[in-house]
């Protein structure tokens, strides 16, 4: 009870403006490279046809970047995977545009921005870009978003007995909304999870625990400062553990009095391709 069947981590992706990829993020986490000081602009969603590509807001650009990279690193065809998209605050820039425009001239709402304002915009663009009819979901759970999405992806993998794509992202708050929604910069991560078997090199055993006092694994690496002010920062401890080769347990927030304990293990002898 409360324990899920183990999942294998087949693919990992990471993007923030100063850590624009898992290779650089892993190197910085491990202290092999100093944190870069330059900021990169948002990635161009090459996956999308021109019409969708020019309409894609920042949320879609970073979500699709990590989704693509995770599938590449897992060596799986994107079109086959059901997916879970998670974001704490959704598209804060579009929310600001909607509210500001409504306050002054409501009939001047941009149709393109409105059609991008749905919380499932990134998921929708992903399915259009990959041609995937496999179902997606788009969720939020406030400060528990990353853990909740991870659990949902693992649950789907267990129930469907197939790989699932998990994408999480948050962007910078703009305008007056920034006074109640704290988030800076662009940050997105993705994982491809599948039911673990004897050949799985990197495994996660997840357990949901009810607690009286929530105690979470802190971020400790040099990468932490680079994403600390983004709403998705709670995901970083898991990626710090994924960057290492030793076994570790990471406690993520799942609810007001609920923790998701993720026990990671790595069988180096099984590594053919280590994500």
């Amino acid at each position, binding site marked *: 009870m409360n324990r899920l069947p183990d999942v294998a981590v087949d693919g990992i992706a990471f993007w923030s403006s100063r850590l624009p990829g898992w290779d650089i993020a892993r190197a910085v986490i491990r202290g092999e490279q100093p944190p870069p000081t330059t900021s990169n602009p948002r990635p161009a969603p090459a996956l999308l046809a021109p019409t969708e590509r020019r309409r894609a807001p920042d949320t879609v650009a970073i979500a699709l970047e990590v989704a693509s990279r995770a599938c590449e690193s897992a060596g799986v065809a994107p079109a086959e995977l059901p997916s879970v998209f998670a974001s704490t605050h959704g598209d804060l820039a579009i929310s600001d545009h909607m509210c500001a425009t409504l306050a002054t001239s409501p009939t001047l709402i941009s149709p393109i921005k409105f059609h*991008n304002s749905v*919380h*499932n915009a990134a998921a929708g663009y992903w*399915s259009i870009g990959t041609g995937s009819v496999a179902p997606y979901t788009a969720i*939020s759970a406030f400060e528990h978003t990353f853990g909740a999405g991870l659990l949902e992806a693992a649950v789907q993998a267990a129930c469907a007995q197939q790989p699932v794509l998990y994408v999480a992202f948050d962007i910078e708050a703009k305008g*007056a909304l920034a006074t109640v929604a704290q988030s800076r910069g662009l940050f997105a991560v993705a994982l491809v999870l599948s039911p673990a078997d004897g050949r799985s090199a990197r495994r996660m055993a997840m357990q949901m625990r009810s607690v009286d006092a929530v105690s979470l694994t802190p971020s400790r690496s040099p990468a932490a400062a680079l994403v600390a002010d983004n709403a998705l920062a709670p995901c970083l401890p898991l990626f710090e553990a994924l960057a290492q080769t030793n076994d570790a347990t990471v406690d993520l927030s799942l609810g007001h009095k609920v923790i998701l304990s993720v026990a990671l293990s790595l069988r180096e002898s099984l590594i053919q391709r280590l994500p």
Partner: protein
Amino acid sequence: MRFQPLRITAFTVCSAAGDGREATLQSLRTRRGGLTPNDFSATPLPTWIGRVPGLESDALPAHLSDWDCRNNRLAWRGLCSDGFLDAVAAASARYGAKRIAVVIGTSTSSIGASEDAYTRLDPDGRYPADLRRSIIHTPHSPGDFVQQALQLDNTSVTVATACSSSAKVFAQAERLIRCGLADAAVVGGVDTLCGSVLFGFNSLELVSPGRCQPFDVARRGINLGEAAGFALLEREAARGSWLLGYGESNDAYHMSSPHPEGRGARLAVQEALRRAEISAADVDYINLHGTASHKNDEVEARVVADTFPESTFASSTKGWTGHTLGAAGIVEAAISLLALEYGVLPGTLNLDTPDPACGPQIRQQNEQRSARRALSFSFGFGGSNCVLAFGRSDL
């Protein structure tokens, strides 16, 4: 771990068609729709809406005041209907508050509160003091509110996949229960009228200037509505209608237009039938998505005509409630459950001349007849589709 049908041991719905199940059933029986001319906002667009009266003067209990906003007031009204609070309290006593998950669907959460804030910013451009509560300005507002209001201690997640949101919550909850992470779940959804949806859909020219007419050859678009609904799913219970199955898919076509052949809709229907272990001919009633948008209804009508026999009774009930977006899934699930329980099969309000794409399945008039199995269709923006399959309690 195979899918197992779950009992729905309690459910409730509040919309423009009435507060609670009894009022909703009466509206369906007497064919009294809840649509009214739009009076929402300072400069209302010329359209009709499904507005729930009195929310402006509703109050949340003092201990929930941090969550106060129109959306959560409507959620509270829903939770307070049909003995739902008592049903959850009883389940909580039986399983423990830690064993009941919460999965709530919405499309815009309480963005109406953010819209309000922007009209009353203080001189520094900050939100006014009464609205400086982060939880109501974020997508998880309804999921968090429902969990707090019901004093549950398992997970709570808000699903926001546009119009399929509060149908997908049934599927998500079933999986949690199947994996042993919960023994029961409160699922549902809530969405309220706000500037974003009224003016947003208007900008896409999807809003009808008159009453919406699903499947009518003369339809001119949707009417927006607001609603809240909830259902209690239990792993093991002796009573209640059944969640027999579900199907989920994407169109993978366009953000705001459905696939012209209904590719995703067909996949979701087939998966729901397969999971429920029934055939199309076993379905007595279908609550269609039927938004009265030009494209949805055309595509959906053909999917129905191609898939189901003449004897299947199908209708859109959006003429009663309007399109309640993220709450449409739960509202129409509730109507499907009422159809099974009472044999009241609602026709399609405001449908005068069916579009040529319609087959004989799509009905205008109500019928009183026994129904044992129902499907509910929800097809959303961004191409997200969910079909739910329900069974009468004596199955």
